[in-house]
């Protein structure tokens, strides 16, 4: 079966280390997403799995076979590139058939595979076209088709949707997920877009500066970010952070507000506190007991229809805060002070220096 495993994989260009030792086990049929800001090493990691970049140290195996030093063609993989990398001088059909021809498959077999893939990708009527005669979405499909016909053990995707416009991106995202589910092929997918990452992944790896910050399912990462970085990266708009001081069961906020926490907090002293914008609700008379109250001086509102983003400052302090409230909720006015309530379960605390999550 096609599981992929990485053991202490490292990469450096000259003296500069870009990947600091990644351990990863990807199960057969799993959809794994590598996500992180640009320059975090996610693409390099993928390219090492592909064999386009040589690992400086460590071991990569696919289907139980060590492939660390093998050429890409001997790894039983297929890859979809960011700019599609279609051969401009070949027709859609030839683009898909090329790899099979090199592998020496017979004509009927090639024809059958290409036709079948074209069918499932709605490309059947475009087989004679050249890539330049296709739209962005169609090119994207051809690139997928080229990967599918090979029937590889593993699909690799390198930011395949970043050249598409927003609407098409959402559409192709769904198509990719559906296709991967139906084919059941192990897939590794690189993106910088956290929405794409969350929606596609069975599990995702958040990378930062050549390290895996956290590996887990989308909901695990959302609910229990292991580090300040993951907390800030996953979720949109990003989590609000501000410094706080913990003493016993009490948190002191920069505005001087004090919260007594119902749950046990081991942390003492300076911490970073995090609250997601969607967990700030307008406090009314009937706010449940035990909810902490934050007075917010509203500076700017962004109505998005279904919801409204409220930007402001914590009263008595400088900490900036964003809240995401129901668009139909009581009108919020810029220039006024409003009270928001937070369920203490939704408070995240992080070590001020290491950024690690505090339980």
């Amino acid at each position: 079966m096609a599981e992929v495993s990485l053991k202490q994989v490292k990469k450096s260009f000259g003296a500069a280390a870009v990947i600091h030792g990644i351990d990863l086990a990807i199960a057969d049929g799993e959809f794994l997403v590598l996500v992180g800001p640009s320059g975090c090493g996610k693409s390099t990691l993928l390219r090492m799995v592909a064999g386009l970049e040589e690992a400086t140290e460590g071991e990569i195996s696919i289907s139980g076979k060590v492939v660390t030093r093998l050429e890409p063609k001997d790894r039983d993989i297929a890859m979809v590139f960011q700019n599609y990398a279609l051969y401009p001088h070949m027709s859609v059909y030839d683009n898909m058939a090329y790899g099979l021809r090199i592998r020496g498959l017979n004509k009927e077999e090639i024809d059958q595979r290409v036709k079948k893939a074209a069918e499932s990708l709605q490309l059947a009527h475009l087989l004679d076209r050249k890539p330049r005669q296709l739209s962005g979405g169609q090119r994207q499909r051809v690139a997928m088709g080229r990967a599918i016909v090979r029937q590889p053990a593993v699909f690799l995707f390198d930011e395949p949707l970043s050249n598409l416009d927003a609407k098409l991106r959402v559409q192709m995202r769904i198509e990719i997920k559906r296709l991967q589910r139906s084919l059941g092929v192990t897939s590794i997918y690189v993106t910088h877009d956290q929405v794409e990452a969350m929606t596609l992944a069975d599990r995702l790896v958040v990378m930062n500066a050549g390290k895996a910050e956290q590996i887990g399912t989308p909901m695990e990462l959302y609910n229990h970010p292991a580090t300040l970085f993951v907390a800030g990266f996953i979720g949109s708009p990003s989590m609000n952070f501000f410094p706080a001081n913990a003493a016993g069961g009490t948190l002191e906020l920069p505005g001087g507000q004090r919260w007594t926490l119902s749950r046990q907090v081991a942390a003492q002293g300076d911490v970073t506190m995090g609250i997601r914008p969607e967990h700030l609700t307008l406090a009314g008379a009937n706010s449940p007991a035990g909810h902490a109250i934050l007075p917010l001086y509203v500076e700017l509102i962004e109505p998005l229809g279904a919801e409204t983003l409220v930007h402001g400052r914590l009263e008595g302090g400088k900490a900036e805060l964003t809240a995401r409230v129901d668009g139909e909720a009581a009108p919020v006015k810029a220039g006024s002070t409003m009270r928001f309530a937070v369920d203490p379960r939704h408070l995240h605390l992080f070590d001020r220096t290491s950024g690690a999550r505090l339980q």
Partner: protein
Amino acid sequence: MVERRPLSNLLAHAILWFGIAIVIFPVYFTIIASTHTPQDIFNGTMGFLPGGVPSDNYVAALFAGAKQVKTTPATVMMLNSLVMALMIAVGKIAISIISAYAVVYFQFPGRMFAFWTIFVTLMLPVEVRIYPTYKVVADLGLLDSYLGLSVPLIASATATLLFRQFFMTIPDELVEASKMDGAGPMRFFWDTVLPLSRTNIAALFVILFIYGWNQYLWPLLITTDSGMDTIIVGIRRQIVTSDANTDWHIVMATAVLAMLPPVAVVVFMQRLFVKGLVETEK
């Protein structure tokens, strides 16, 4: 232009047509002369209109050559020119495209040294090292041969630089996709690089064909057997210092024949020609 000025437009057209007239006149006059009898030309009675004997002059030029000074028939000379031009164009393209491929797609010890070795020759036209090169060709026993005419002119940095430049614009992902598809370096070259280079090859071919066809000093030096004369050298051999001995009607017909192939190439492959010119020089 930004404003409408009928008068200045008219002036512009006038200047252009005047320029074109000057550019065309010598050739027009040559064609006219090539249709007149030697007497007409010699007595100065030919005027500016076509004469009555076009076919005679061209038949003589093509199959016999000049009479008073014995020269090679133009058919033979044109064939020599054609072979030389083709060998130079094809040879140059072939050796430069593979060397550019080596320099761009491989890392190997001595790569930069090899590149600069080739690049520096950009500065050394054959004219500045004419006799030592002649000696090398003589030592190799290549005088009066097609190889001697073409091979020394084959190596040049221009074509290599052009291909190198073009290869740099082929996206890296295409190489990677080929690797994924299982193509090795030669397969990638044949299946992807060569088809993508088609336009560049064609443009370069046009320029190099003209370059080869119009060579003068080198063939003049390297051939002594008149059967190996190229047509450009041949015309020169038909002209002798004393006017009376020059068959101007044959010279003019031969000149027209010598201009025809390269001018036809420029006019009919205009787009490729301009592309080739601009990209080899810039």
